[in-house]
């Protein structure tokens, strides 16, 4: 399991290749990449991500462990950035490795649903120079609830 919380950019391809190369006995690697999306009008200047340093790594590790207990996984990788990002920047990635794809897909989706609403990150959007905290969505809560 590798969990990284960092402000620096990272290369999704390099990380995916390194993660895949570590596991010779898996049949499936699933990756998800989260990217800063511009709003419809193209007016998003930046997105600032705040986190709770003392809690973030620990909380993500606990949930990665839950995923490993629940599905038959060989490994889990989570990289999540914080700080100021602009549209098109990679925010985060999740990768799961398993013998079979169903485990890899489901665990990746579970981890994403968790990261959306339980990992201690908060997004602030800057639109036309004005800051606004992104509000949590009920949709994301519902997505998480289906794993109960």
């Amino acid at each position, binding site marked *: 399991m590798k969990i990284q919380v960092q402000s620096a950019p990272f290369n999704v391809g390099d990380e995916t290749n390194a993660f895949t190369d570590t596991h010779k006995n898996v049949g499936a690697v699933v990756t998800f990449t*989260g990217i800063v999306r511009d709003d419809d009008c193209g007016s998003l200047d930046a997105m600032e*991500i*705040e*986190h*709770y340093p*003392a*809690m973030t790594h*620990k*909380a993500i590790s606990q949930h990665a462990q839950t995923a490993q207990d629940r599905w038959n996984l060989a490994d889990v990788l989570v990289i*999540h950035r914080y700080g100021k990002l602009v549209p098109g920047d990679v*925010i*985060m990635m999740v990768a799961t490795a398993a013998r079979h794809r169903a485990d890899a897909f489901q665990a990746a989706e579970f981890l*994403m649903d968790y*990261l*959306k*609403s*339980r*990992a*201690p*990150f*908060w*997004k*602030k959007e800057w639109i036309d120079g004005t800051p606004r*905290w*992104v*509000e*949590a969505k009920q949709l994301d809560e519902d997505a998480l609830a289906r794993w109960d």
Partner: protein
Amino acid sequence: MIELVYFAWVRERIGAASEPYDGSAATVRDLVNELRAREPRYDLVFSDLTSLRVAIDQELVDFDAPLTNAKEVAFFPPMTGG
């Protein structure tokens, strides 16, 4: 002594990232009520607890959780990661 820490708009509206608490509140809810009585900025931030989350020593808890042995209590809005 408990360290209170705040994130996102909670931090901005209270005007501090952290502060020490030296009182005798037994639960998070008691602590919140004490803060609300202290100053209007706290009263405003804690007026709707359904829009807030709380963690004791980096573990999410509910507002009725006891503060026994707590070292750090964090208040923040629902998370928006991913």
